């Protein structure tokens, strides 16, 4: 998730430049708001045009759309009744059949239904944890890059500390001491995966702040907040977006890992939780593959899709990486 991002360290972001010239030319004809809207529309169109050329990225996007659709429509297609153990329709651990295309679990619930229902939790946790992680990373990165001095030193040492700590061990420790809930898992993943983002964003902030227009803004009386929110943030935003997409996949994997290790909320159905249930039911040694394989594949496919999308976004936004498809 980080290798692609690392390459952008300190690199100049050229994609912002043409926009400024283009807009100043037409400044006289329209209101600033309309201009901004137009400019954004243009850049989105340009982004999409370039993104379309990445076949892997398109594949990832299609897979994500499919999974998103499945997750969002789950209440209509399978309904929350699928989790009910008292009304389970089948016998325990039935092998795949016409009635249960993916067999049943140890309670006799349909595994296909659970897989569909579990996608909601897995995707939700993945997204929220990634957002939390990137938010922390961006905040620390931007402030450390902007303020420099002792503040930056302290923040970067903390970042380094988190960077060298094995993420999984830290997340397990956090999930163990806190109560078992989705919030805990999100928090545990969020606070352990932010340091790479912080490093990336700080490097980008340093690059942006060394440009002359920042100096101009300062000369015109722009304060810290103005510079960070109006000049630095928009410039690191593409990087942050790409980073988010990449972190989602690792967050989904982390969620599955924690749930598999039995640190998740046992009453919530998620893909990792299904794997954990399978292990506890002895599905591994008794060869009940239909309990293990589908959630495993689902996790792999979604994580892959997010990675492909993230890579594509990254290479569109960073011309230095442009050639790889």
């Amino acid at each position, binding site marked *: 998730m980080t290798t692609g991002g690392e390459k952008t360290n300190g690199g100049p972001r050229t994609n912002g430049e043409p926009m400024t010239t283009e807009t100043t030319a037409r400044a006289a004809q329209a209101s600033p708001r309309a201009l901004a809207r137009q400019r954004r529309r243009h850049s989105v169109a340009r982004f999409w045009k370039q993104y379309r050329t990445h076949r892997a990225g398109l594949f990832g996007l299609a897979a994500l759309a499919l999974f998103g659709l499945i997750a969002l429509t789950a209440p209509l297609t399978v309904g929350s009744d699928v989790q*009910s*153990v*008292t009304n*389970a329709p089948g016998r*325990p*651990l039935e092998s795949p059949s016409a009635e249960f295309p993916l067999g049943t679990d*140890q*309670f*006799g619930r349909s595994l296909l239904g659970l897989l569909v229902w579990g996608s909601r939790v897995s995707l939700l946790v993945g997204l929220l944890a990634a957002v939390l992680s990137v938010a922390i990373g961006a905040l620390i990165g931007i402030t450390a890059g902007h303020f420099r001095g002792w503040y930056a030193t302290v923040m970067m040492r903390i970042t380094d500390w988190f960077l060298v700590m094995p993420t*999984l061990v830290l997340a*397990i*420790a956090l999930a*163990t001491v806190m*109560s*078992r809930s989705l919030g805990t898992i999100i928090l545990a993943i969020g606070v352990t995966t932010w340091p790479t983002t912080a490093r990336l964003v700080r490097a980008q902030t340093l690059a942006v702040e060394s440009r002359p227009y920042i100096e101009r803004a300062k000369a015109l009386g722009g304060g810290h907040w103005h510079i960070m929110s109006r000049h630095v943030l928009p410039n690191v935003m593409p990087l942050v977006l790409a980073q988010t997409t990449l972190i989602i996949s690792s967050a989904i994997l982390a969620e599955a890992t924690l749930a*598999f*290790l*039995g*640190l998740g909320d*046992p*009453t919530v159905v998620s893909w990792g939780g299904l794997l954990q*249930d399978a*292990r*506890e*039911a*002895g*599905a*591994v*040694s*008794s*060869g*009940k593959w239909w309990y293990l394989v589908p959630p495993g594949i689902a996790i792999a496919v979604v994580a892959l899709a997010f990675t492909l999308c993230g890579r594509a976004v990254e290479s569109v936004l960073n011309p230095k990486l442009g*050639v*790889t*498809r």
Partner: protein
Amino acid sequence: MDTQDLDGRGHPRRAARTPLRLLAAAGAAALTVTAGLATPLNPAPQQARAEEEGKKVLTVAVAQSVDSLSPFLATRLVSTSIHRLMYEYLTNYDPKDNHAIPGLATKWEPSADKLTWTYTIRSNSKWSDGKGATAEDAAWTFNKMMTDEGAATANGSFVANFRKVTAPSPTKLVIELKKPQATMAALDVPIVPKHVWENVDDFSKFNNDKTFPIVGNGPFVVTGYKADSFVRLKPNKSFWRGAPKFDELVFRYYKDQDAAVAALRKGEVSFVAGQPALTPAQAASLKGDKNIKVNDAPGRRFYALATNPGARAKNGDKFGDGHESLLNQKVRQALFMAVDRKTIIDKVFQGHAVEGEGYIPPRFSTYAWKPTDGQKLSYEPEKAAELLDQAGYKKNGDGKRVGKDGKPINYRVLCHATDPQDKAVGKYLEEWWGALGIGVTLNCLDNVTDPWLAGEYDLAFDGWSVNPDPDFVLSIHTCAALPATPKDTGATDNFICDKKYDDLYDKQLAEYDPAKRADLVKQLESRLYDTGYMNVMAYPNAVEAYRTDQIKSITTMPEAAGNIYGQDGYWSWWSATPAAADEASDDESSSTGVVIGIVAGVVVLAGAGVFFTMRRRATAEDRE
């Protein structure tokens, strides 16, 4: 409750009744996963240990960590089972029907006033260093426990009522009691050699795991131990009942049951301990293996749901934060009636358990008790709802029952994260009690000790192994077992203190007539049932498996249908006979390993192929 962790804190707990479940730390869980994933897929078939140098080795896969090898401290099932092998007890239990039979003592009888017991000690039992085991050793062991608090940690409850223990001659042991005590023929206390143990300074710290072999007089001698790795034992050739037939007995650690099952399939281990029990899926798949026998026998454990009756200490201080509604007997009974025990047996245990009723498992037929028809709290959700209405816990507009504080009732159920059954039953509770309008939060922890001792729970999953003499599992619900102050740790299970129960308990302990005592014990169980404090849901079977090409025969206890691992005695390992070498055949699992290896190899090759094609295409595109 998984009281074994309480036991670890060093308060008096009787040995062999240690509950069966294992508590692994999160780190161990991680290890577990690695083991679970790596071992079943490891294609290299390992040589059966039994064939090494023609030595017959019996390897047992266990999961529970040894808490201590000192019999004065150990309370976990694995440790106390090993102590049964290392040291002789005064009496033993008959493997057929659990009645007391001679151990180190050949004869025992009470005086007319029931207060003095005289034991005749056998003269043909020798310590493994050559010295004879005498009454002096036994007297020293008991006296040490009576005078040294550290030595009373594990088995202190046995000697609490002793006035004086003497050894007038090497073959005669005299115990004087303060009050009559019915358990005198069932003193589950390992007798240790005085000449070795009198050099120990601090009994609360000495773990008996530094010098090997450990001097003992049981059927086996411990020759090596590494925490969470193995315990190695050699047979005691001069054991008075006859030497065991295997050349070596090894308890090897598999923290993951799937890994243990895979090891059994490969012949790496001869026996997989049913602790935790094999899952129904594992048992079913092992049954199809021609060289493996699955032993599915009635267990000696009960599996219950315990309510927090308001934690309190002997000094009258109340503590903890159990829900006030649980102080109401009607509420407890309503919760009882909303649990469909039949479904739990069918779905969670898939038939590998017996539906729970009384406190003591039906396997101990002398003491097992069943509720009468009028008394029985069977599954009747409508009646449960009525009871809750009567008790004043009515539903609000949202269909949730409201407590006295005006908030919807939501019970926190303490469950063991390491026990899949807890989680599975918890899912059912959520739905059953949810239908009554009561919320359930499963609080699954690796270590339930802290909230348990602090009384910070509403209900909890609980389970104890019951001994042939039920005194101990009954004693943990008496007022006397409560902690002295909220800061102390008592022997109590879940803070039950009921006057009627205590009176009956004292009566049964002083009753020497077996039939009358059994009747009193049944009254005791009846009282416990009516209070609704303990909902015994099931008596889980002992589901364990062994290789018939390595173990030819092994004694179960009771002999007709009983468990092998965790017996009240040394019968299984002492009696196990090795299969002849030529019977040990390579089974198909090694070829399964090879097949898996080949498939994995093909997949990797195919993956590599695809990868390289894509790389080549990528470079081609790059060149454009």
